[in-house]
């Protein structure tokens, strides 16, 4: 991330939160369709380089069992100027939640459940999320 052209580096760390709307999480489990997840993360990187040409992006997402406060996802963006570093970083997390095939299973105090539809935008109007150039 650190390079002479960079004036701004933003990072986002998504951590496992203990309470969601009063419900207590004991632990989490992430399952991924790995080859496609990697491909979609690369797609997000390409989208960002098109939208914010001078940025460099790195994204990492955990799979498997996570405890409270563990980092589930880390996004780092470096850019000559700060606005792009913030925008591209937030874009990355929004897109991860749209197109990267990773699923979260919450282990609550009183049971467990797979979480879906975080964005409340399924079924996708077009049958699939917008990807890359197809959005133009």
């Amino acid at each position, binding site marked *: 991330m650190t390079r002479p052209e960079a004036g701004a580096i933003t990072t986002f760390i998504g951590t496992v939160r203990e309470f969601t709307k009063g419900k207590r999480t004991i632990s989490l489990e992430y399952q991924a*369709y790995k080859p496609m997840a990697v491909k979609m993360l690369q797609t997000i990187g390409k989208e960002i380089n098109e939208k914010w040409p001078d940025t460099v992006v790195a994204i990492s997402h955990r799979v498997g069992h996570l405890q409270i406060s563990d980092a*589930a*996802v880390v996004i780092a963006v470096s850019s000559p100027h700060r606005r792009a570093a913030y925008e591209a970083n937030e874009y990355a997390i929004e897109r991860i939640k749209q197109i990267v095939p990773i699923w*979260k*299973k919450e282990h609550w105090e009183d049971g467990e459940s797979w979480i879906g539809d975080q964005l409340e935008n399924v079924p996708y109007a077009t049958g699939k999320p917008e990807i890359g150039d197809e959005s133009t």
Partner: protein
Amino acid sequence: MIKVLLFADLQETVGKEFITFEENELTVTALRTEIKNSYQYTQIDNAMVAINEEFAREDEIIKTGDIVAIIPPISGG
């Protein structure tokens, strides 16, 4: 024969990591119908289908040898 990967709640509902179909060709819509008829998975209409690791349109045709996956609503990040 078409092999279809399952994940998350669908994997648990079916009890398998993948299922197979005898057909050599199948549209995405037909695949949904097959799963609706064979398994108690009401969320299939909210799921997406991926062919060769790309999200597929409803009218796309799956052929023997394609890597197919049902993508229930995702929850990463």
